[in-house]
């Protein structure tokens, strides 16, 4: 498909340079195709088209004759943004548009996915669930995603230590894929980092269908000095694995959003998970020293 596109682009370029109006040049650039006969239509081959999502966008430069191709290649490697995509008139090329739609389709599907049942046990986490009973309720009722019922609070009371220095909470949030992708590296790195600084960490809790505010309920119940919640962020295009950490000193009901410290963009293309673990351990140490988070922690 790359070759076909390039031919079309070169034609566009030539026509545009022949002093036609921009509109005419672009509209006139469609290469006529031979009509398909009914006999040809009947012949299906067993081959697949190349996977549209298999193209590494950061190495796929579509601008036909850039002033500086080397610079363009460096620019594309410096950002995951969809640059160097060129245009037909004022609109994107067909494969660019379809790849965008494919990435959106993946992101939408990862919102609806669930973290596997056995994941919590695998990482020695105590599993609880908020008052939401389904994903759709979770999406439209954030209030319920910040609450635990009596039964789940009882689980915390029985299985978690009270009054530790740092309480770690993991939550699915808006991306189950973020939990599965980041927790296996992040959690051990962070806990090891904290332990090496002599900071006591409680039993990690896994909360299903949770909003950030669930940390306030857990804070009030278990009274740790600091709560950190690691939560799947709403997916971007092609970044369904992004996770954020929200940290609250003396977390309690009625805590303001501005009192939380946030570290976002934890994923392969942003802050990788193992690095994030080390960074968060260090940050938690500084928070414990300053006895504050959010706007009170500078």
């Amino acid at each position, binding site marked *: 498909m790359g070759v076909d596109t390039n031919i079309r682009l070169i034609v566009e*370029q030539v026509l*545009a*340079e022949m002093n036609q*109006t*921009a*509109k005419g*040049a672009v509209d006139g650039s469609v290469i006529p195709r031979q009509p398909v006969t009914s006999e040809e239509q009947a012949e299906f081959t067993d081959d697949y088209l190349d996977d549209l999502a298999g193209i590494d966008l950061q190495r796929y430069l579509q*601008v036909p*004759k*850039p*002033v*500086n*191709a080397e*610079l*363009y290649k*460096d*620019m*594309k490697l*410096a*950002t*995951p*943004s*969809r*640059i*160097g*995509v*060129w*245009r037909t008139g*004022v*609109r*994107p090329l067909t494969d*660019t548009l379809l790849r*965008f*739609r494919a990435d*959106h389709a993946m*992101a*939408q599907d990862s*919102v609806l996915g669930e973290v596997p049942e056995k994941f919590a046990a695998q990482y020695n986490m105590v599993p609880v669930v908020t008052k939401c009973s389904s994903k759709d309720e979770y*999406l*439209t*009722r*954030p*209030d319920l995603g910040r609450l635990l019922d009596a039964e789940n609070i009882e689980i915390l009371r029985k299985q978690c230590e009270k009054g530790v220095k740092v309480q770690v909470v993991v939550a699915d949030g*808006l991306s189950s894929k973020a939990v599965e992708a980041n927790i296996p590296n992040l959690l051990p790195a962070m806990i090891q980092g904290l332990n090496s600084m002599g900071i006591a960490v409680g039993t990690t809790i896994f909360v299903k269908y949770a909003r950030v505010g669930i940390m306030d309920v857990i804070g009030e119940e278990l009274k740790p000095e600091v709560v950190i919640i690691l939560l799947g*962020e*709403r*997916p*971007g*295009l092609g*970044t369904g694995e*992004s996770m954020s950490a929200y940290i609250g000193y003396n977390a309690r009901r009625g805590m*303001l*959003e*501005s009192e939380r410290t946030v570290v*976002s*963009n934890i994923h392969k*293309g*942003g802050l990788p998970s193992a690095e994030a673990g080390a960074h968060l351990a260090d940050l938690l140490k500084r928070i414990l020293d300053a006895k504050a988070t*959010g*706007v009170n922690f500078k």
Partner: protein
Amino acid sequence: MKLKTRLMGQSFSFKSVKEVLAKANEIKSGDILAGIAAENAAERIAAKYVLSQLTLEDLRNNPVVPLEADEVSRIIDNDVNEPVYRSIKNWSVAELRQYILGANTVHDDLHRISRGLTPEMVAAAAKLMSNLDLVVGARKIRNIAHCNTTVGVPGCLAARLQPNHPTDGVDGILASVREGLAYGVGDAVIGLNPVDDTLPAVIRSLETLYQFVQEWEIPTQICVLAHITTQLRAVQKGAPVDLLFQSIAGTEAGNKAFGIDSQILDEAYAAGLKEGRATGPNIMYFETGQGSELSAEAHHNADQVTLEARCYGLARHYKPFLVNTVVGFIGPEYLYDTRQVTRAGLEDHFMGKLTGLPMGVDACYTNHMKADQNDIENLAVLLTAAGCTYFMGIPMGDDVMLNYQTTSYHDISALREVYDRRPLPEFENWAERMGIMRDGKLTPKAGDATIFTK
């Protein structure tokens, strides 16, 4: 003041102006979440009818949050021009709607009454309007502001170039800046949302943008959309700040959740005028969006349309250069689907314009909403018809840092072409000199970011 009516034989009664305002809204998931929405379609229309018969004086006397409880209410009330208010206070909301849409009412008339309106009146008018009413009403209003360049110029459609990057990488940011400029985008502002809100990181990004704009002599303004307290410290340290940005809410408690109050805004505004690099006089940039008060539990049981109008009332106090709603960012618990986002985008744009602001819109959606790129392209088309001041411009509409989708560099060019709109004049002249545009159209060179090579 009558808060009861019969409609099609049914009786409806409301306890307060605030309840009437809430129930008169078009359906929004946020109002349902707050427990204040109309129970059914008939009650919604009954509330609209009751609202239509209230006077503007009734609305001024019944702000959705009382003056004694909220500094936003006090700032708004203090800013009302009394002679203008006295000349219109006996109008019903029905009359206000008809005045706005009337054939003989032109821009200057709307600009004049704007100074006598409170957000509750502005929101009330919007609640009585159909989507096309909101387009027709907003289209009449021209609000012009000046920072380094002039925004809101008739016949123009501007764009914020939003070069966000997942780690604030300098080369990555500049790559998106170059690409956007090559599409004629960036005339409203080159505005970066930083990942890292610390002072050294924010200063580094400000200097990166400033130096690039200086090097290529681009007539625009720059902004790094950190928390305003960080920007304040940056400007005090002599960093190159044109515009000071902050997200704002329509209640004091909502602003507290954003870590601000009027004192902080006053201080930043004064520092920006004194220490900032911009020509001015308009140097503030605000973002808003329906639902932010409720998400901070700071809504005082008021509806999200009225609270949004109060953001504009607060914004007006600081004579901003740019204000935009981020209309699909907040999620399905406040705006459930395309239909609700479209309605909210048209409402916000109209209300901002009627409040006197150079109003833009971030027509966007997140991946947990029932919306896609087609839907926001539709909204952008409607808003351009309504005379929207500016949109966001992002590579293919994909924000790789904030993880949402908005309008693209291509979309800005397409909207300008469809509606025969131009970039802001100084910027268009620059784009012609650079060979990117000719007679308001992209040239064959446009779209190649490496024309910015020396």
